């Protein structure tokens, strides 16, 4: 057994080279500057929101586990720029940025993290479970792989409702690199292929599933190739470049929308922090952490905008101040919001009242004395 595993280790491929360490990037001439600045503002908002969530967790305002999009801002913004309001979105538990970019008020998202009754899911979902049907966000999912078959089913539902074409609705299903190793991923891709479903699976490859590297966990570590056994085309894009992400997502979404065929998009990035707020990530080498920091998408876009003459220091600071103010307001809103009342504890367990379901208030006798 030992021997065989050593042989397997020898086969392990070198990790894909990180994107060239860049200090600035040029923009295509036809990109409207306001749009670029809008992307930057969005990325700064996510960054500030997540840093604040980290603080609030450490001040015990947020309970449980809390997973941040730090390092994934360009991905979230690029994907959401490509997804239409009429499309549907499923994500994993690293979902705060997606909820913000689908247009939800930062206050409601923060309130959900706080577990308050004004939250996106009335404080019942928490950090990992953002649901808002209005913006077609059909959930963050805390169980690894949990979102995949339901997202695939939502895409199946769309095929009953209309023909492919420029106005067709499609599903985007986000997942992490580690999640491509669980059975639900493979079952879902196969179903999407044989049923020709309008769905785009987006693998956010931050190179780690908790403390496990992609190379240690995936038989095919070039994850965009994992669709090939289902003849689902895959593409890998640089997830630190918001335009590359947006354009890659548009290509994949077009295929789903116009041809009604599934697609797989892999977006490469680095997780800037631990797996969740409480993970000190001691398993990471300092070289790895340095590489991650060098690929931080937020300063990269800032520098690029400045180099292109689209932004100056003062304006950049105004962007930050704006985001700071919005996040501070979100925290104040969450803080001032009421806790869910214990009297609502039993709400939503079922869609309609269920006879004989125990719904006494906590502390009240569940069995009444004769």
């Amino acid at each position, binding site marked *: 057994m030992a021997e065989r595993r050593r042989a397997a280790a020898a086969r392990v491929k070198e990790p894909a080279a990180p994107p060239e360490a860049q200090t600035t990037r040029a923009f295509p001439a036809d990109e409207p500057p306001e749009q670029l600045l809008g992307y930057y503002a969005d990325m700064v908002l996510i960054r500030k929101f997540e840093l604040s969530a980290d603080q609030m967790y450490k001040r015990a305002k947020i309970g449980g586990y809390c997973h941040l999009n730090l390092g994934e801002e360009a991905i979230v913004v690029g994907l959401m720029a490509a997804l239409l309001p009429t499309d549907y979105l499923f994500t994993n538990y690293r979902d705060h940025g997606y909820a913000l970019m689908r247009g939800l008020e930062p206050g409601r998202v923060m309130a959900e993290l706080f577990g308050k009754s004004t939250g996106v899911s009335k404080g019942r979902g928490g950090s990992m479970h953002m649901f808002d049907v209005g913006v077609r966000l059909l959930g963050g999912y805390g169980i690894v792989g949990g979102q995949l078959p339901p997202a695939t089913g939502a895409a199946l539902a769309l095929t009953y409702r209309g023909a492919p074409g420029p106005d067709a609705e499609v599903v985007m299903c986000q997942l992490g690199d580690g999640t491509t*190793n669980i059975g639900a991923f493979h079952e879902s891709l196969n179903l999407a292929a044989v049923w020709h479903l309008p769905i785009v699976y987006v693998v956010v490859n931050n190179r780690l599933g908790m*403390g496990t590297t992609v190379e240690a966990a995936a038989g095919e570590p070039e994850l965009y190739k994992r669709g090939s056994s289902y003849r689902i085309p895959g593409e890998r894009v640089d997830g630190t470049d918001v335009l590359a992400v947006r354009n890659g997502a548009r290509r994949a979404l077009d295929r789903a929308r116009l041809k009604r065929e599934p697609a797989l998009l892999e977006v490469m990035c680095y997780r800037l922090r631990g797996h969740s707020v409480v993970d000190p990530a001691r398993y990471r080498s300092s070289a790895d952490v340095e590489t991650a920091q060098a690929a931080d998408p937020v300063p990269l876009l800032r520098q690029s905008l400045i180099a292109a003459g689209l932004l100056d220091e003062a304006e950049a600071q105004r962007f930050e101040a704006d985001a700071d103010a919005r996040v501070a307001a979100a925290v104040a809103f969450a803080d001032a919001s009421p806790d869910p009342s214990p009297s609502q504890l039993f709400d939503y367990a079922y869609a309609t009242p269920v006879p004989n379901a125990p719904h006494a208030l906590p502390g009240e006798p569940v069995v009444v004395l004769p």
Partner: protein
Amino acid sequence: MTTMTIAKAINEGLRATLKNNPKALLMGEDIGALGGVYRVTEGLKKEFGADRVVDTPLAEAGIIGTAIGLALRGYHPICEIQFDGFVFPGFNQITTQLAKIHARSAGQLSTPVVIRIPYGGGIGSIEHHSESPEALFAHTAGLRIISPSNAHDAYWMIQQAAACPDPVIVFEPKRRYWQKGEINTDDPGLDPFQARVIHPGTDATIVVYGPLVPVALAAADAAEEDGHSVEVIDLRSISPMDFETVSTSVEKTGRLIVAHEAPTFGGVGGEIAARISERCFYALESPVLRVGGFHMPYPVARVEEHYLPDVDRLLEALDRALAY
């Protein structure tokens, strides 16, 4: 005698198992370098190597399924599941294969796989990080299900589970991982599938296991101040269940309260209530009462305290039992 936390006790129990049984090995997500989410396997990969402490990809069905295969060829795998709610991708393998291969092969094969699952609430986290799914497993014949409540039992029960020829699921009370206790490293003192009377009493019996054991002891102390003598039983083994110890107690006290964090509906408490009602019908002074979680998804942190059985809810049940 030595004192340590429950998490450390399991770590030491695993260490002893790996030392004593060359066929034993650990499998799980991030159990090696990271030492597991709760650091229960900390240091073991370094000590025993990557072949005996196997870091797996994220694939619970794969982990449990391959553990079954290892067991079929003479190994004794001990799998770690990170949290209660994450076992379900592997539930299929557990209920359809692990539990049944011995019976199906007419005893030719056995599947001595141990599955460690940190379970229960009280850590401020939602749903699948806080659930108590033991009844789902107890319903399946062929599985043994145990839950230690203190460091001594944690140290020994993991070793006894590893030595058991049947599959054993060890539900570990995660919110008590840091609770310290004394361990007698020379003598387990009890078979892992037996219950233990941990507080003698005469007026009523409270049966608990895992994370609720300290709550029941606190309730017994509080009841004593009110002049009621409560016997507390740490069930320890959920399947098989030690009805002997429970019925002996109820024959004496005439009243029984069963408490667990899991919802009472369809829960372990219902099984105990039914059995004890059959066995002790003439000794019972009141109906068997259950205290547990409500029939709803495990709630978020802010209302968690209302969901989890506490001393007050146990005392309230005691009052109701004593009122008959």
